[in-house]
C-alpha cells in the first residue's frame, strides 16, 4: 500500500470550465476518494422572487445558466402557466421546441469543444466552437441576444419568427450537418480520442438508478429518463425517441451527445414543417393563485425541475430550480473512486458540469 496524498483539483484548473473543487485522495496514481465542494459562484437568484413580480422573474430565471438560458426561462414559464392555468398558443409551443433544440445543439457543441480541450486537442476544440458560432448567430438574428435570449414570457413568446427566418434556420442547419459529420467523426473514430475515452469511467445501470443520475450521463448507460418523453413541448407529436447507449463509459456518453446533435437538427426541421399559423402569446391577467406547481424539462445536461408556489399576490412565495448537475454530482464522486489521476479530467468533463446552474 502506497502513501496517501491529497491533491486539490480546482476551482481554478485548465480542464474545468467552471469552479468546482475536488479533494482527491490518492494512493500512488489511483484515486481512493473524492470529496467535492461547491459554493464559489452562488448568486442567490431564487431569493429575488421576493422583490420581482412573477413576470419579471422570467428574466431573472433565464440568467440561472448562460448556456441553457432558453430552457430555464421555458421551465419557469411553464411552471407559472401551470399554476395560473394558462394555455399557451400552439405556435408558441412549437417555437419553444425549436429554440430549445437549438440551445441543445449549441450546448453539446460547446461541450464537445471543452472535451477536446481537456484532452489537449486544441484544433478540434476550435472547430467545434466555430460550428457553434452559427447557432449563436441564429439566436442574435432572430431574438436579439446571443446567449441570453429574453424571448419567453408568461403566456407565450415576445414576438413571432416569420416563415422566411424559420426557412433560413433550416438551410443553415442543413449546411452545418455536413461539417458536423466530419468534426464529430473525429470524436467517434479517431484512435487518439478513443484511447482517452473507451472503457474509462464505466457506470453500470444499477449505479445510475441507485444514485439518480440524469441526462446524457444516464442515457450513456442505457437508462431512459429523458423528460422530452413527457408532455411539455411538441416532442410527442414529432415522434421523439430518446437516444440510448449501453456501454456506460466516457465514449458512450460522448456518443449520446453527438447523436443528440443530429437528432435535434431533425426535430427542428420536422417542427418547422409542421408549425401552425396563429398568435404567439396570449394576454395574461390576474395573479398567480394560492397553490404550487412543478414543471420538468429536459435541458441539454439532463432533467431540470422547477417548483413555484403562489400566494395570490403578484410576488411568488417561492421559486426553486433543481438543475441537472446537482443530480449528477453523486455519480461523479462514485465514478472517481478507483480511477487514475490522468483520467479525472475526462470523468469530470463527461458528466458536463455546470456549476453556475447548480449554485444559482
Amino acid at each position, binding site marked *: 500500500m502506497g502513501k496517501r496524498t491529497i491533491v486539490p483539483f480546482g476551482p481554478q484548473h485548465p480542464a474545468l470550465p467552471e469552479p468546482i473543487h475536488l479533494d482527491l485522495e490518492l494512493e500512488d496514481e489511483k484515486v481512493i476518494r473524492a470529496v467535492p465542494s461547491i459554493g464559489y459562484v452562488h448568486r442567490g437568484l431564487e431569493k*429575488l422572487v421576493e422583490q*420581482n413580480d412573477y413576470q*419579471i*422573474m422570467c*428574466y*431573472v430565471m433565464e*440568467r440561472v445558466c448562460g448556456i441553457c438560458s432558453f430552457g430555464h426561462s421555458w421551465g419557469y414559464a411553464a411552471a407559472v402557466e401551470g399554476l395560473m392555468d394558462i394555455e399557451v398558443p400552439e405556435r408558441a409551443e412549437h417555437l419553444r421546441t425549436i429554440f430549445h433544440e437549438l440551445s441543445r445543439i449549441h450546448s453539446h457543441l460547446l461541450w464537445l469543444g471543452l472535451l477536446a480541450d481537456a484532452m489537449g486537442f486544441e*484544433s*478540434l476544440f476550435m*472547430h467545434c466552437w*466555430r460550428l457553434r*458560432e452559427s447557432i449563436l448567430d441564429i439566436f*442574435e*438574428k*432572430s*431574438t*436579439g*441576444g446571443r446567449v*441570453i435570449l*429574453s424571448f419567453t414570457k408568461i403566456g407565450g413568446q*415576445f414576438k413571432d419568427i416569420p416563415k422566411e427566418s424559420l426557412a433560413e434556420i433550416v438551410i443553415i442547419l442543413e449546411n452545418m450537418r455536413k461539417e458536423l459529420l*466530419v*468534426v464529430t*467523426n*473525429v470524436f467517434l*473514430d*479517431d*484512435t*487518439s480520442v*478513443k484511447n482517452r475515452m473507451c472503457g474509462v469511467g464505466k457506470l453500470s445501470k444499477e449505479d445510475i438508478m441507485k444514485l439518480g443520475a440524469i441526462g446524457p450521463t444516464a442515457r450513456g448507460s442505457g437508462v431512459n429518463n429523458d423528460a422530452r418523453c413527457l408532455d411539455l413541448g411538441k416532442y410527442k407529436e414529432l415522434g421523439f425517441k430518446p437516444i440510448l447507449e449501453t456501454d456506460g463509459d466516457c465514449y458512450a456518453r460522448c456518443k449520446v451527445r453527438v447523436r443528440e446533435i443530429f437528432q435535434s437538427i431533425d426535430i427542428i426541421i420536422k417542427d418547422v414543417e409542421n408549425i401552425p399559423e396563429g398568435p404567439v402569446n396570449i394576454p395574461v391577467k390576474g395573479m398567480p393563485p394560492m397553490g404550487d406547481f412543478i414543471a420538468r424539462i429536459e435541458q441539454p445536461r439532463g432533467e431540470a425541475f422547477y417548483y413555484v408556489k403562489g400566494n395570490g399576490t403578484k410576488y411568488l412565495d417561492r421559486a426553486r430550480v433543481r438543475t441537472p448537475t446537482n443530480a449528477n454530482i453523486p455519480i461523479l464522486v462514485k465514478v472517481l473512486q478507483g480511477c487514475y489521476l490522468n483520467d479525472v479530467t475526462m470523468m469530470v468533463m463527461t458528466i458536463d458540469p455546470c456549476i453556475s446552474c447548480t449554485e444559482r
Partner: protein
Amino acid sequence: MGSFKIGGIVLSSAFKRPSTRLYPTVPRKWQDNTRGHVEIDPEQCILCGICSKKCPADALTVDKAARTWTIDRMSCVQCRSCVESCPKQCLVMKNEYTSPNVKKVIDTVNIPEKVKKEE
C-alpha cells in the same frame, strides 16, 4: 477507427479565409434585432416610473421632482422589460452596444416640462 481523422479539415482550412473577423480593422455587423442599449425620447416621457418598477436589475431611476430619467449603463442587462412596459413607447432598444469604459457610466436625461395645448 483510424488516426489523423481531422486531417481533411486541417488541410482545407489552410486554403480557406479565416473564420474570425480581424477586429478592430473589420468592425462587427449589428443585426436589426440585437439588444444593444436603451435610449429615451425625452419629449414623449411622462415620468410615470413604470420602467423603473419593471427593471429586474434596478438600473433605472425616475425622479419626478427633479424631472430626470437616470440609467446605470453598467447595471442594465438589456432585457427589454422597460421597452415592453413603457405606456408612451418613448423607450427604444438600439442595436449597438455602448462603447467600452473604464468608469461606471450613469446617464441622466432631463425631461422637459410639457406645454399644455391651448384649446
